[in-house]
């Protein structure tokens, strides 16, 4: 039992070596640059670098709520992607029945996309307000 498991996971050895190598490499880079690097403290050392332009004010601005909306859409369509992934791997076995199921699944979410689009939720530059006076299709 133990042996067979060991044999089964033998290909994991390179992974372990890789893992350790990554830790050593990153650690070495950090430690060596810290130890060997030159340090100078000037008047402007702690000022953020803004391509040579003097910074104005804090970078901590309030972001628009549309960033949140985009993140939200991303989460929802990402969920969809997970199911498409499961389908893609087993597409042959799922057959036509699976294809139809996936088709229904995607068309429901397509309705969502269409809704977002008509609502103007995907527009970035223009006003994000719901356009209430939409002319009929």
């Amino acid at each position, binding site marked *: 039992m133990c042996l067979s498991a060991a044999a089964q996971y033998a290909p994991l050895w390179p992974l372990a070596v890789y893992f350790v190598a990554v830790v050593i490499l990153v650690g070495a880079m950090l430690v060596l640059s810290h130890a060997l690097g030159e340090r100078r403290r000037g008047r402007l050392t702690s000022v953020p670098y803004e391509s040579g332009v003097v910074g104005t004010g804090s970078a901590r601005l309030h972001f628009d709520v549309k960033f949140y909306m985009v993140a939200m859409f991303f989460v929802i369509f990402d*969920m969809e992607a997970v199911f498409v992934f499961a389908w893609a791997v087993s597409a042959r076995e799922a057959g036509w029945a699976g294809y139809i199921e996936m088709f229904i699944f995607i068309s429901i979410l397509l309705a969502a996309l269409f809704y977002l689009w008509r609502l103007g939720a995907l527009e970035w530059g223009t006003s994000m307000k719901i356009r209430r006076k939409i002319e009929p299709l």
Partner: protein
Amino acid sequence: MEKLFFLMFAAVAIASGLAVVTVRNPVHSALALIVCLIQVAALFVLLRSPFLAAVQIFIYVGAVMVLFLFVVLILDMRKAVLQAFPPVKKRFVVGVILVLSAQMVAFVFLTPMGLGPAQGWEPTVESIGRVLFTKYLFPFEVVSVILLAALVAAIVIAKERQ
């Protein structure tokens, strides 16, 4: 070998998990959470559940973390950073956590585990896809309706109206 990997991933997961709650800067906290979630994905691989590992990366590391980071950007962080968290005595918090985890461990060990791991069924992506489109067809289609409802709900709550 597997045990070694498990210990490695679990140790990093716990350490980064602790960092999530102890670090002051919310962005650092979010980054630590990413590390933690990736470790958990690795643990899923060790448990021979590649699908769950992929979902973990897809959903949590991909989408949910983006959402977290945007929320961090949208909120006024200066106030949040200044406030002490947790808002009660630290000793109390640690005590509650210890009691809860001790209870959890006790529960697991005190219960006779009749069923071993599932026999004759490997939860590969392929086999999950197969049951998803046959046995679990109905829940699968319900999920798409839930996603649509969630999207409409998000729009209704967050959008400005004229």
